[in-house]
């Protein structure tokens, strides 16, 4: 017997899919902003902070980069409540994604910071810029410019990784696919359509981030 694919059966569930899509987009945007902020602080602390702080940040980065996202998510969602921190599914998803992206972007931005020649910082200081001004204009901006492509692809990886949050019943795109296939048993169709949605999201995000990079850093290569 040859199975006939029936994509029409997905149509009644378009609202579930739309809600999942919006959730995934919002989750990605919010945790990207928060994660890159964490990464900026982390990278600055690692490069210029006191010894102990740099050590703490390094440990954070290595722990997150060497454990699977799903374990981090379970730890946040199931583990933290035993310490008294109760989180909803969406909050746990957001927190886990921020922690995850924070570690990766710390490492990426740090590479950019390390590439800053010492002379540039000294030049900034000799122009009577404050430490914060040097950090912002002389160190961080070129660091972001240099590492933007790496940062952009990490953001997309994190967005694709967000499909795992369906496992704590956060209602994202993957959750929508699970929901639909549990109702109409069109598993392959549901997952195929959602996979294509992710693919489109990834392609769109890549184009948007490239455009944003060109906007933020005019005159930069690529």
């Amino acid at each position, binding site marked *: 017997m040859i199975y006939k694919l029936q994509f029409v059966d997905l149509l009644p569930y378009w609202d579930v899919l739309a809600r999942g899509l919006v959730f995934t987009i919002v989750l990605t945007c919010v945790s990207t902003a928060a994660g890159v902020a964490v990464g900026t602080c982390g990278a600055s602390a690692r490069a210029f902070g006191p010894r102990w702080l740099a050590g703490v940040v390094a440990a954070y980065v290595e722990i997150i980069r060497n454990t699977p996202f799903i374990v981090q998510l*379970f730890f946040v969602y199931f*583990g933290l*409540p035993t310490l008294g921190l109760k989180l909803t599914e969406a909050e746990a998803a957001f927190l886990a994604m921020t922690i995850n992206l924070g570690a990766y972007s710390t490492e990426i931005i740090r590479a950019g910071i390390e590439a800053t020649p010492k002379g540039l910082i000294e030049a900034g200081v000799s122009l009577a810029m404050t430490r914060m001004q040097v950090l912002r204009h002389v160190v961080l901006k070129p660091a972001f410019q240099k590492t933007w492509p790496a940062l952009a692809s990490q953001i997309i990886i994190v967005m694709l990784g967000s499909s795992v949050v369906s*496992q704590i019943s956060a209602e994202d795109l*993957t959750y929508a696919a699970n929901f639909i296939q549990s109702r109409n048993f069109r598993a392959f169709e549901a*997952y195929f359509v959602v996979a294509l949605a992710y693919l489109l999201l*990834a*392609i769109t995000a890549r184009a948007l981030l490239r455009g944003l990079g060109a906007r933020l850093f005019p005159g930069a290569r690529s």
Partner: protein
Amino acid sequence: MTDFSVWVIFSNLLLATRWTIALSLIAFVAGGVVGLALLFARMSKFRPLAKFVALYIEFFQGTPLLMQLFMLFFGVALFGVEISPWTAASLALTFWTSAFLAEIWRGCVESVPRGQWEAGSSVALSYMEQMRYVILPQAMRIAVPPTVGFSVQVIKGTALASIIGFVELTRAGTMLNNATFRPFLVYSLVGLIYFCLCYPLSFAAKRLERRLNAAR
């Protein structure tokens, strides 16, 4: 309810780690073989083939690994074939790994200067001979650090196999958590074991990369 000591939890997790390691090895080795084939196809002069492989890579890099697992697990069942979580996880991870490795290796091959190809053809080597004797030996040196680095992603990727019911480290953690209600402890231990598996590889990748950069 029976009491679980920390040691009982830990030893059970360690037993399940076998399957994480086995699945990682299968995915990495099979993914490497398929990835190498994809690399040649991607760089072939036969345009439609190169285009097809580019699409394959785009698909597997642009969709979540979890979706690939689900599609394989449920998609194969449509043909009336029972597929075990073992097979589904191995296949999905192999496809996923091959796509990434092919792309990583292509970057390495392309980073070999064009002059090397030209030098090869000027001494009348065929395309395959140029690859075999001139390009690949150089590209392989460059490819070692990112390949080792990617193996960490493969190990972490196997954690998703838990979702389709394959009992490896993460799944064992979930089961133990359900039995003991000590999520903080269980997931800390699970994280620790993954860390012990992954960190040496990450460290090696970093060291190898530094050494390669120093040599040039």
